[in-house]
């Protein structure tokens, strides 16, 4: 903040000094040109007087014109020719214009340089502020499961509860540890994404197979939560993406759907895909808690948790859908979410570029 202020003040001082300097320079050049023109006029007046003397001494006008080409003799009078006078005035105007343009160009170039530097500094400050707030948010996110873990441990130590109650506390602690582990994974993933697309591959991926593998990983959990997952994806559909990124996207979207279903207790998740022009669309619908329609875009921001406490043991970290959005952007695709309101379920629409072989 302080360095930005210093830069602003220095830039302002530089601009002010430069404007004064340029104004002085233009003024000085103008005076110099006027003085030069005046000197020339005096010289021409001298030539005219000499020509007049020669004329009166009997020299022929042609001879005088040969000797003094800028002097015109007519009706026995020698004077500066209108053409020379006009050339003198034109030269003066042209010089003034040149100095004005040069001065303005200099100021413009200076202004542009300052704007470029300011922009770079602002971008850097923005990155630093983002990193700061990211760190603050990350540490904040960790403190709640950590507090829960500590509380359970201290409860065990303080109260020595009977085995059934102790079991509840142990399960809670295991879930807290799992929650923190998921957070570490997601934070690392999102940090990698922040650095850009260095490792991102773009290749055709068969959608049904990729989605099927993720569903298989989550099937047991879904069964325990009384959630049915139905997938209707044509075997031929392929998209362009990084295979690992597609896997992470599907896992996060399905984890999110399971979390949205946890407070409801049971429900369904339906996946349908279709080709649409040069793209492939995958819709993931759940019958979970849904969200206020206006909250749709906010879902994909970092650390947005519309149902933070989760329920039934599921906890969001606030990073899952942010990662989905970034990975979809890297795949030149997009993602959007819609819900008709709380309690109405939600649908997520993922769109990838279709693999070249199957574009319609």
């Amino acid at each position, binding site marked *: 903040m302080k360095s930005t202020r210093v830069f602003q003040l220095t830039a302002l001082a530089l601009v002010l000094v430069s404007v004064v300097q340029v104004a002085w320079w233009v003024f000085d050049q103008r005076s110099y040109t006027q003085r030069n023109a005046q000197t020339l006029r005096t010289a021409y007046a001298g030539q005219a007087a000499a020509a007049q003397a020669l004329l009166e001494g009997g020299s022929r006008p042609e001879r005088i014109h040969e000797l003094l080409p800028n002097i015109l003799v007519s009706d026995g009078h020698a004077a500066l020719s209108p053409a020379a006078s006009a050339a003198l005035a034109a030269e003066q105007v042209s010089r003034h214009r040149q100095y004005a343009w040069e001065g303005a160009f200099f100021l413009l170039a200076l202004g542009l340089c300052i704007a470029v530097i300011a922009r770079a500094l602002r971008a850097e400050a923005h990155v630093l502020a983002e990193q700061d707030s990211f760190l603050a948010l990350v540490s904040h996110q960790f403190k709640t*499961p950590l*507090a829960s873990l*500590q509380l359970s441990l201290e409860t065990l130590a303080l109260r020595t509860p009977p085995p059934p109650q102790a079991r509840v506390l142990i399960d809670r602690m295991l879930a807290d540890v799992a929650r923190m582990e998921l957070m570490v994974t997601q934070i690392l993933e999102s940090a990698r994404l922040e650095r850009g697309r260095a490792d991102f591959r773009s290749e055709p991926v068969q959608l049904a197979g990729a989605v099927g593998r993720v569903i298989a990983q989550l099937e047991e959990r879904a069964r325990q939560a009384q959630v049915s997952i139905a997938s209707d994806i044509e075997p031929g559909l392929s998209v362009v993406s990084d295979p690992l990124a597609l896997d992470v996207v599907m896992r996060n979207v399905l984890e999110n759907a399971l979390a949205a279903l946890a407070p409801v207790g049971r429900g369904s998740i339906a996946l349908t895909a279709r080709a649409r022009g040069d793209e492939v669309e995958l819709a993931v619908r759940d019958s979970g808690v849904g969200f206020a329609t206006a909250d749709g875009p906010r879902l994909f921001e970092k650390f947005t948790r519309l149902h933070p*406490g989760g329920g039934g043991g599921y906890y969001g970290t606030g990073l899952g859908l942010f990662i989905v959005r970034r990975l979809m952007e890297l795949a030149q695709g997009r993602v959007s979410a819609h819900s008709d309101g709380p309690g109405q379920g939600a649908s997520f629409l993922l769109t990838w570029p279709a693999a070249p072989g199957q574009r319609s």
Partner: protein
Amino acid sequence: MSTEAPVAPRVLVVEDDTHLAAGVIENLRAEGYEVSAASDGEQALAWLAGAGCALIVLDVMLPGIDGLGVCRRLREQGNNTPVLFLTARGDPADRVRGLEAGGDDYLAKPFHLQEFLLRVRAILRRWDWYHSASATAATAVLSFGGNEVDFRAFRARAWNGEAQELTEKEAMILKVLAEHDGDIVSREDLLEKVWGYDVFPSTRTVDNFILRLRKRFEADPANPRHFLTVWGVGYRFLKDGTP
């Protein structure tokens, strides 16, 4: 307001993290408190609109209206139920924000169970003292210098006829000072009696509250007659004012 301390004080726990809420609730129950729970600010306010409790354990980072907002709204409504904030942010600036919002104490996550229970007990004890010290008709009202303070209603009428709404901290400080009419009360004693212990980063906070009391009740706050500063020590309250 009830004059006798309830047998089992009720605590409202407002925490959106179900695990942490469950842990807090179980431990409070094990200590003999009655416990109610809310998972967000709106739920807490709705619950408090229809019921009362002896203490609110309030998470700061809640979905929707946050803990500070809940506390502010309660104070605006004249609800003086003590609030113990739980928060993931524990730096002094955040603490001050919490206490300025009307909180009584502030505990940063992760916290020690014993410390949490100790703080709950300390807040309830302070309020027990306040209520019992304002229990009789004689102790419920304080008259000085044309001012009249009703400790039970947290209201006052100032010397110029102006009606005043007191915060619970202002009322508590006034109570402590009035109980020691004519004696010097140190800043540390005021902190200990009103806030408990190391809640505030400095004793200067007490000075700010005294300034607020002077503004409310002194005809000339710059030359106080009732709330006198004893340099380097604390304050002396004179019911009858300086001669």
